[in-house]
């Protein structure tokens, strides 16, 4: 009985840790997924007002096409943080990957989002 309780507790702990993925990663993933889906409302929802004003449907379509050229979107992996606070991610697709750099302001809004074709692709 004690063993079972311990296993249940461990299970809850694992679930809790899994749900504790960094908010930056979740934000980066949701924005990347929205860009992939060419969903301008979801993209700009996470952006600061100043950055949201810069987004055009044409630009979003170009970026979405770039992502689609690498296949289906699978997910993001955080690869590092730069001294200025920008975070680096690797966006994995079925046919390659892209580098995603994202910067958040003090309110947790995206103040910079850029996609770089991976040198290996």
């Amino acid at each position, binding site marked *: 009985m004690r063993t079972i309780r311990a296993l249940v507790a461990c299970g809850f702990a694992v679930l809790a840790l899994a749900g504790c993925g960094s908010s930056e990663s979740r934000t980066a993933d949701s924005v990347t997924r929205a860009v992939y889906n060419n969903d301008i409302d979801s993209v700009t929802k996470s952006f600061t007002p100043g950055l949201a004003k*810069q987004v055009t449907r044409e630009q979003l379509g170009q970026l979405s096409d770039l992502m689609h050229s690498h296949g289906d979107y699978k997910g993001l992996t955080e690869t590092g943080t730069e001294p200025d606070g920008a975070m680096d991610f690797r966006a994995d697709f079925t046919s390659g990957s892209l580098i995603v750099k994202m910067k958040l302001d003090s309110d947790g809004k995206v103040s910079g989002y850029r996609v770089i074709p991976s*040198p290996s692709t």
Partner: protein
Amino acid sequence: MKLSRIIGVSLIAAMLAMLAPQAPASADGAASTRNIILGGAAAALIIINHNKQVHAHYAQDASNEAALAAQRNDAQAAYASEKKAYDNESALVSDLKREVAYQHDQVDQLRQQVAMMRPIGTSGGTPATNFVAQTTLVHPTPVGGEQQVAVTSYGWGTI
């Protein structure tokens, strides 16, 4: 017509006979007969003149009638022509209306396309954006160091 000539000739002959020197009047039967014939001829001449005037009047009426008919025909033709021109003008106006509506739709579509090209939240000119920019990428080197590489990035904001 032939009868009229015969009568006319007879009348002329009768008038010439009247102008001819006559014998002193005598109450004989031949003179009486001649006078009766001349009176009849004069009456016939009056009747013929009257008929001629009546016919001339009828001819004038017919001529006037023909002229009026021609005028009516001309007016009807002119009306038909004007109506045809009006119909053509109406068709032209309809075509122009359709053309204007088409151009209006085109303008609206172009405005929508321009609005879609315009960044969200702006109603005026397009502010400068850096959708395509050079971004510095830090690459680890085989000897354990780092190498900064300028690469082309796509997105919004400066990082």
